[in-house]
């Protein structure tokens, strides 16, 4: 599989996906 970080837009999309994952993790952590 190609490394998404080799592409600029793969990097941006990975950042968006990471944001969503961390958001739901923190929401569940703090019981929001």
């Amino acid at each position, binding site marked *: 599989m190609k490394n998404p*970080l080799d592409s600029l837009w793969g990097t941006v999309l990975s*950042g968006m996906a990471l944001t969503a994952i961390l958001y739901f993790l*923190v929401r569940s*952590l703090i*019981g929001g």
Partner: protein
Amino acid sequence: MDFVHYGLGRWVHIMAGVMWIGLLYYFNFVNAAAAKAAAADGSGAGIGKHVMPRALLYFRWAAVVTWLAGAALLGAHLPDAFMFRSKACAPIGVGAWLGTIMLFNVWVLIWPNQQKVLGMKPADDAEKNKARRIAFLASRVNTMFSIPLFFFMSASGGIFRTGFF
């Protein structure tokens, strides 16, 4: 004292952060493709000689100032943020962790390897190629991390806090 801590502290954190991440985005959105195109037509020497050393100077020291101002802003809450010990500190704790990993990437992975790539440290062609790949990936990781970093910074404080958390 609150003015110095929260007023000036936040101001310095934002200004240094704009310089740090502004240069990071310059490296990733502009320079990487420009350097590749310039190398292909033989006009890239000036970028490596005149642009990159200056850009990296401001980049790496702005990273330090940003982190220190961020740590000063957290103040006594710093352990709570890093350990996710309170609900109020959890969102900015994610930002603090991301920023800290990014600072590590700047000083441990990007800067020493860029010195080899730019000829500021001795390296043969194989070492340069390896250094270029490590610096590139660390820079891309920081670009990726900056996206949730800005989200958690903007979503975790002040009057907008209830918008997300």
